[in-house]
């Protein structure tokens, strides 16, 4: 049996088997730290962001990158005069740098959001919060991912 036919059989049995064949035809799908900085600059409108106030809660060692629980909270009284208006989450090694942007207001009561994200590989993540006075605060975290999400579409 030729190698190609064996691969066809594998593909019929389990779709994942085909991934190896298609890897070479896929475009290089991976963002870079520069792209993350650009995505953050787009969110902040070019303004500088300082580390602090933001608490990015995520496991340091992630078993499964397909669904990683994250919680971002910001130290803010959430009053009409002083509140968080937006929280953005960014990554540097997924195919796309944006993860999510949450829009909050004084009606939120508490500046905290949770969700579940995908991570393609071990990398640095950053959460940036925009406050009502126009300042930006951030926190970066480094995580280790053992089982990657979107592994089928990754370059070797």
């Amino acid at each position, binding site marked *: 049996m030729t190698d190609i036919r064996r691969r066809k059989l594998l593909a019929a049995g389990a779709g994942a088997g*085909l991934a190896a064949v*298609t890897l070479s035809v896929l475009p290089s799908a991976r963002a870079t730290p520069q792209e993350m900085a650009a995505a953050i600059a787009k969110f902040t409108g070019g303004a500088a962001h300082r580390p602090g106030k933001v608490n990015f809660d995520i496991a340091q060692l992630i078993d499964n990158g397909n669904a990683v629980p994250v919680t971002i909270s910001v130290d803010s009284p959430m009053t009409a005069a002083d509140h968080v208006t937006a929280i953005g989450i960014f990554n540097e090694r997924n195919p796309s740098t944006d993860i999510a942007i*949450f829009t909050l207001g004084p009606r939120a009561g508490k500046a*905290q*959001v*949770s969700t*579940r*994200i995908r991570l393609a590989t071990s990398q640095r993540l950053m959460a940036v919060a925009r406050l009502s006075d126009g300042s930006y605060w951030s926190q970066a975290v480094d995580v280790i991912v053992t089982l990657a999400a979107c592994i089928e*579409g990754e370059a070797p």
Partner: protein
Amino acid sequence: MARALVHMPPAAKAGEVIEIRALISHPMETGYRPGPDGKVLARDIIRRFSCRYNGEQVFSAELHQAISANPYIGFFTVATVSGTLEFSWEGDNGFAQTEKMAITVSAS
């Protein structure tokens, strides 16, 4: 119609901060992944989530491919008056769904 689950307290005191957890079943196909035929599957994600409290928007989110399948979003809001909270999800291929939950607010 996708299955959506929203968890929130049915009653609260005025001024109380309540937690809302919203979950919807959706594949969140990234558009980077090859399917069984080897061709890259088209992107199909939820782009936007919003929560309106008696018509006024209190929270919204812009989602990207890095959000897991069956998107879960947990957030907080202040219970002000009795009424309805409306949760809506919008996405690719004309995906749109709205869920409504009633809340009873008593004077503190």
